[in-house]
């Protein structure tokens, strides 16, 4: 059986890869993907802790489902914003989007 630590190492790695991506990527879509990674690292933690600590309960699974739903909605909105930004500015790099006007 795979020990709990292995799961946690994976989720931690996933989380920090996401954080790293969020911090250094300049492309908006890259940042969005990095945020997805962070959310999924959290999902793994929910599921793992539910499975190992409280196998009789379902709250962790349900929460991870909620997170997935919310993340999907968020992604849809973010993508639509990014598309609009691209249409307006012909660019999706964060450091070139520094004006509220225009």
């Amino acid at each position, binding site marked *: 059986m795979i020990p709990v630590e292995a799961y946690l190492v994976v989720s931690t790695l996933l989380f920090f890869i996401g*954080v790293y991506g969020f*911090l250094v990527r300049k492309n908006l879509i890259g940042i969005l993907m990095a945020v997805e990674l962070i959310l999924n690292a959290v999902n793994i933690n929910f599921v793992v802790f539910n499975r190992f600590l409280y196998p009789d309960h379902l709250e962790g699974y349900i929460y991870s489902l909620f997170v997935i739903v919310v993340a999907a909605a968020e992604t849809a909105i973010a993508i639509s914003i990014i598309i609009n930004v691209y249409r307006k500015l012909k660019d999706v790099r964060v450091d070139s989007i520094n004006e509220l006007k225009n």
Partner: protein
Amino acid sequence: METITNLSPIILALPFLMFLFLGLCGNKLFKSNPNIAGWIGTAGLSVVAIVSYYIAIQYFWVEGKGADAYQQFVLFNHEWLKMTDNLVISIGFMLDPISAMMLVVISTVSLMVHIYSLGYMHGEEGFQRYYAVLSLFTFAMMGLVVATNIFQMYIFWELVGVSSFLLISFYFIKPSAVAAAKKAFIVTRFADMFFLIGILILSYYTNTFDFLKLTAVSDGHATLVNNTMCGEMFMGLSVTSIAMFLIFLGGAGKSAMFPFHIWLPDAMEGPTPASALIHAATMVVAGVFLVARMFPVYFFEAHDVLTIIGYIGAFTSLFAAIIACTQTDIKRVLAFSTISQIAYMFVALAVSGYTSEHEACLGYTASMWHLFTHAMFKACLFLGAGCIIHAVHSNEMNAMGNLRKFMPIAHITFGISCLAIAGILPFSGFYSKDEILVAAFEHDKVLYACQAFVAGLTAFYMFRLYFRIFWYSENPAHAHHTPHEAPMNMNIPLIVLSVFTCYSFFNLVSNDSYQLFSSKITADRVGFELETNWTIAIASLLVAGVGIAIAWVLYKEKNDKPDMIAGKVKCLYISASHRFYIDEIYLFITRKIIFGGICVAIAWFDRHIIDGFMNLLAWISRELSYDIRDVQSGNLQQYAWGFLVGVLAIAMFAIYY
């Protein structure tokens, strides 16, 4: 009493309203015909003059005389600024012998100047402004003499200074006029600083500004000042003396006493009628009026200061008379003559006693009498000089000569005024100057000798002026432009003022006329019977006669005697014609010592230490801001870094601590 109380506000309100009206609307309303502004100003001033005369006559002959002394009426007194319960600045109207006399002097001279200016200033740029400022001056001067408290006097004191400034700089396109106006304003303002300090010291101890309280006398003391300030010492001097001396310095600035006299000759840059009104007849005697107003305090509590005033006055009168003998600009001669005559009034006050018994307060009466007569004949002289300048287009004596043929009225009135200022019987100046000399003789022989000598000098330089203008040899420059008599509206004031100078002919036949001043204007307001001291009268007549005779010999016809005498006393002559280099000394002190020395050090301190400290603070905050401004960049990812580091730090803290 009811009537004069009701009429009194007109004297202050009407000139002020005229000032506002002519000053604000004059240029627009009377653009096409500025003379209307002049007529309105003159009409308004006529009303003021009638009211002033009415009040003065009512006061002196009907209302004023109490059981034994003239009373001091406060006709109205509005509280204006309340500093403490006792220390209140009011604006009011006080009627007593000297203020009633001043009402007559100011309104007469001012009205004459208004009428005269209709001709003299005709067609000048800024005619309306001129009349507006004349009204302002009349308002301020009236407010000064009727002041019920010393602070009201100070306020109007500054207002007359402002109107003097505005009139000297009337021709403000001339740099010399601008410089003269600045000089007059700065010098008098400098002296007024001492005046203010004196007022503050006095009111700090006595807790009042009110003249009635300050000058109340009982048992041979100015009670209030004696009770509150007696025995207070500062640096070995009595505080009363310091305060009263500082107040006198303010008066010395306005009245052009040495060493503050330097502004008055330059003030002649203004229009001549304005010089006649402000710098000869009324404003410059404000200092004398101030000392007369505070006379009980000076006499009983600061007699040492009064002695100093006497010596400053004597020195100034001698000094100015010597300079007047060498000047060639006729207005400057008159200016120095004014300084000298005002100094006479100070000397008279200094040698006066307080009570009317045995003519003790003769000096006080003589001072006010001389103020009155001097205002009339000096205004006449200035207005006459204005006519002459109008006719020959120059201030210089050299451009004149033999004008008596062309200008008979100016000649006669000028001659009468010269006789009066020289002190020839029976012109008004004889009586007033003679009483000053009598008072000086009885009090202090040194002052008497000095003043008698100055009387001779006065006769000399005035007749030098008179002969030089009206006799002498004709100036060839006249050939292409014959001088002509001034228009009627300029001659009428001359005639009226000469009549005032000749009123004293009645003194020969009527004792009532002779006692006019001594029965009404005295320090304790009681009045006394004046007796002529013929010894001194004859002595002063002789001195004046000698002065006139010398002038006659030297200046009746063109000759080389004046140059010869000037050559003999070259050193004295040159330094006197340069006004004893007092202006140069002032310039040396201000430019070289103050601006060049002290101010350089102060400026260095200001620029390097004070500014430097402020610059250091600014530099530190600027550098700090540069360093920390990257924190707030608006860059989301950078914020995320900060957030991450913060979270990690808190986590570390929570785990390991």
